[in-house]
């Protein structure tokens, strides 16, 4: 195990170290400091083990595309993110997250079709329409209001429901259960119950679509079940992954991105000048880099012994890749603490890197381009309705960074 390789008096970074409350948008200061030491160091995680932490931008790319590392979370020594996952891991089915090589390719290709860039581009008018309708409703409703419930959560939710063919009327039910996936305070029991409830709901929908298909992803999965390419539990799991992943991440980028922009009025006013949602694209990439809401780190385990960036990695060593650290590595992004919406930031790791890179990234990009290109132009007086210090940020060990509520006024 990794533990034995450390000198007894060696001080290592405790990975759950919090963000600095004065700079809540920046990665935890301790994490940033690791890059000054080396692109790969040791860190301690919640269970006391000390996996490698790969923080350098180039090193993150190299390790995340290295076939000598595995995503198989059932292997002993795999650096799991929390207690609930550790208790449930042996029951985890094979998914795009924990499969390697050919298994991964097979599963991923079944899920890719609805998310290609050309297909996503055809959804832009629909995303614009949903965004405009939600903003109309927000402006007609109470002021101040919470941006999370008014826009940030409903927009990605409406889109993923439209894509999957899930009735949006059920959103209270599935949003509640989907949120467990990204919480660090859940128990193993909560986790199981939420996934059983969500799984039962989606399995029933797939059964209905086997009889009466529509033009949506669940109907596509239902057809594969009928053809014998997928079992119903496999199809349910794929649907559950898409539904969960389609919610919190984009919602968080809309919420925290807005809070960040309100704190950078010069950047925000430059953004407001752009009246084409496609031309907002570079700004979106920079905000993705800056915030890196999938903050908790990609998890891997070494399959064999190998030398990497001057260290000896041993078979069975855990590896954690905290994406925010790579996105604030000054060798890749000079003055990383400076939000510069004109920066060429497309090489960021906000969607990860390697074969496990985010499947829904093109949908997320277009949603963000439309929201960032519309909201601040339509509501130029938008501002926080509370002091920034009152915003409740999620803890640093939540899988996705975020703010529970964003009270805004205009």
């Amino acid at each position: 195990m990794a533990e034995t390789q450390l000198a007894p008096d060696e001080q290592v970074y405790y990975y759950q170290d919090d963000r600095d409350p004065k700079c809540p948008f920046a990665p935890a200061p301790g994490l940033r400091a690791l890059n000054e030491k080396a692109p790969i160091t040791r860190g301690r995680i919640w269970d006391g083990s000390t996996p490698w932490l790969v923080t350098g931008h180039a090193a993150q790319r190299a390790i995340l595309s290295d076939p000598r590392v595995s995503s198989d979370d059932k292997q002993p020594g795999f650096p799991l993110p929390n207690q609930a996952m550790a208790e449930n891991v042996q029951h985890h089915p094979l998914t795009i997250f924990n499969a390697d090589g050919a298994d991964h390719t097979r599963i991923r290709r079944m899920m890719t079709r609805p998310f290609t860039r050309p297909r996503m581009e055809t959804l832009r008018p629909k995303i614009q329409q949903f965004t405009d309708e939600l903003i109309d409703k927000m402006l007609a409703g109470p002021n101040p209001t919470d941006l999370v419930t008014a826009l940030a959560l409903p927009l990605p939710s409406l889109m993923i429901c439209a894509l999957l063919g899930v009735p949006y009327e059920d959103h209270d039910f599935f949003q509640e259960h989907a949120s467990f996936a990204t919480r660090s305070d859940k128990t193993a029991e909560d986790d199981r119950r939420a996934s059983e409830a969500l799984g039962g709901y989606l399995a029933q929908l797939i059964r209905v679509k086997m009889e009466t298909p529509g033009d949506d992803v669940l109907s596509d999965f239902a057809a594969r079940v009928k053809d014998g390419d997928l079992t119903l539990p496999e199809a349910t799991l794929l649907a559950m992954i898409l539904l969960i992943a389609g919610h919190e991440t984009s919602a968080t980028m809309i919420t925290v991105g807005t809070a960040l922009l309100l704190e950078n009025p010069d950047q925000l006013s430059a953004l407001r000048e752009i009246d084409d949602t496609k031309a907002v694209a570079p700004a979106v990439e920079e905000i993705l880099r800056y915030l890196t809401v999938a903050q908790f780190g990609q998890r891997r385990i070494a399959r064999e012994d190998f030398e990497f960036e001057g260290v000896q990695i041993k078979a069975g060593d855990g590896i954690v890749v905290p994406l925010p650290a790579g996105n604030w590595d000054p060798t890749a992004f000079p003055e990383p603490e400076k939000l510069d919406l004109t920066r060429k930031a497309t090489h960021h790791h906000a969607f990860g890197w390697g074969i496990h890179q985010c499947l829904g990234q093109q949908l997320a990009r277009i949603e963000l381009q439309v929201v960032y290109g519309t909201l601040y132009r339509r509501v130029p007086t938008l501002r926080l309705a509370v002091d920034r210090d009152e915003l409740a940020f999620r803890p640093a060990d939540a899988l996705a960074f975020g703010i529970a509520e964003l009270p805004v006024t205009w």
Partner: protein
Amino acid sequence: MKVVVDEDKCVAAGQCVSAALDVFDQREEDGIVIVLDENPPAEVADDVRNAAAVCPALAIRIEE
């Protein structure tokens, strides 16, 4: 400049299409990369190099 892709490595992230729209597309059924122009003109060379650089699966090779 010649563009060579490895379909088996491609994970259909779509980054190349964003980087160089005239040179790359994605197959309808599974999103796998399609090269529209194997010998792209000099004016898009930077975009094509960028497409290779942002491919998360390292599936694009450029022969200069």
